């Protein structure tokens, strides 16, 4: 894999297939049901079959596929002599840092069939976003992340995300900030090699 390859955070074909294949299946099955006047077990299969298929498709092609691809990437990296000193698996992407050789490997959830390995020197900036809004006793956050720029492309990796807002001194937020601070230091250390 070319080390100066441009990062693609998402694969449009994968996203379209992920969203639309079950919808197309539902439309086709319901059309057949309506036109062919199917009855009995075949009718039940045509009505509920595509719904089950859609549920399985969206579940299996979601997180499980991303987890499988992450494990495959780790295996391939090990075979290629990449030292996995730090691995951070987030909901949107997985970042693996080889501090000894100053390299980075990254796999995006919405581009799961391709991972990127490149020198950490391509990172131009790293920072932590604690997601803080409000002031005083009303200060809180629902997302903590660390971010870095690779050839001008901003990559955000969430260390904590929630559907509700937590106080800045809550254990979830503190742990998220600590993870983000640690990863920024790891990335900066790898950049220095």
């Amino acid at each position, binding site marked *: 894999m070319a080390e100066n390859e441009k990062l693609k955070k998402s694969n449009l074909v994968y996203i379209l297939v992920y969203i639309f294949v079950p919808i197309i299946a539902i439309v086709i099955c319901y059309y057949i049901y309506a036109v062919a006047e199917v009855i009995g077990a075949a009718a039940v299969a045509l009505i509920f079959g595509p719904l089950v298929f859609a549920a399985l498709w969206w579940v299996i092609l979601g997180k499980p596929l991303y987890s499988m691809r992450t494990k495959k990437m780790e295996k391939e990296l090990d075979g290629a002599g990449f030292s996995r000193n730090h691995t951070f698996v987030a909901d949107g992407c997985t970042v693996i840092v080889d501090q000894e050789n100053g390299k980075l490997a990254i796999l995006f959830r919405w581009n799961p069939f391709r991972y990127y390995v490149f020198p950490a020197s391509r990172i131009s900036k790293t920072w932590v976003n604690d997601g803080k809004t409000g002031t005083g006793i009303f200060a809180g956050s629902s997302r903590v992340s660390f971010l870095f720029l690779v050839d001008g492309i901003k990559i955000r990796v969430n260390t904590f995300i929630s559907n509700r807002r937590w106080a800045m001194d809550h*254990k979830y937020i503190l742990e998220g900030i*600590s993870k983000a601070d640690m990863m920024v*230091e790891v990335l900066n250390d790898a950049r220095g090699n």
Partner: protein
Amino acid sequence: MGFLRKMRNVFHDDWCSKCQSEMDVARKQLYMLPNMRVGHYVQHDDAKFYRENMIKVDSKQEIPPGIYACGMHVYRCPVCGHKAVKLSVFLPVRDAEKQEQLLYFDKGEMDDFANSL
């Protein structure tokens, strides 16, 4: 030990377990636990683990982000001379601390370690 004395020990862990006098803080020291990283914290109650894994530091600034810290208080009773050690395990996060565990050793488990300071 009576119920009130037990309760007193729960809320006043700096009180001597032998004579219930308030103990003096003989020494304080900060350590880091490099084997304990954020997201991989495992609770340990055994004094041996702390004796083997704590590394002395002078301030929180010396502890890298994501590494757990441990504050040690060595108590000595001014009345009966009994010794006790309190360990407070926490994750330092910038100016804040995420408390994880409070341990109290008063049967001499940490005495050798504390004396070697």
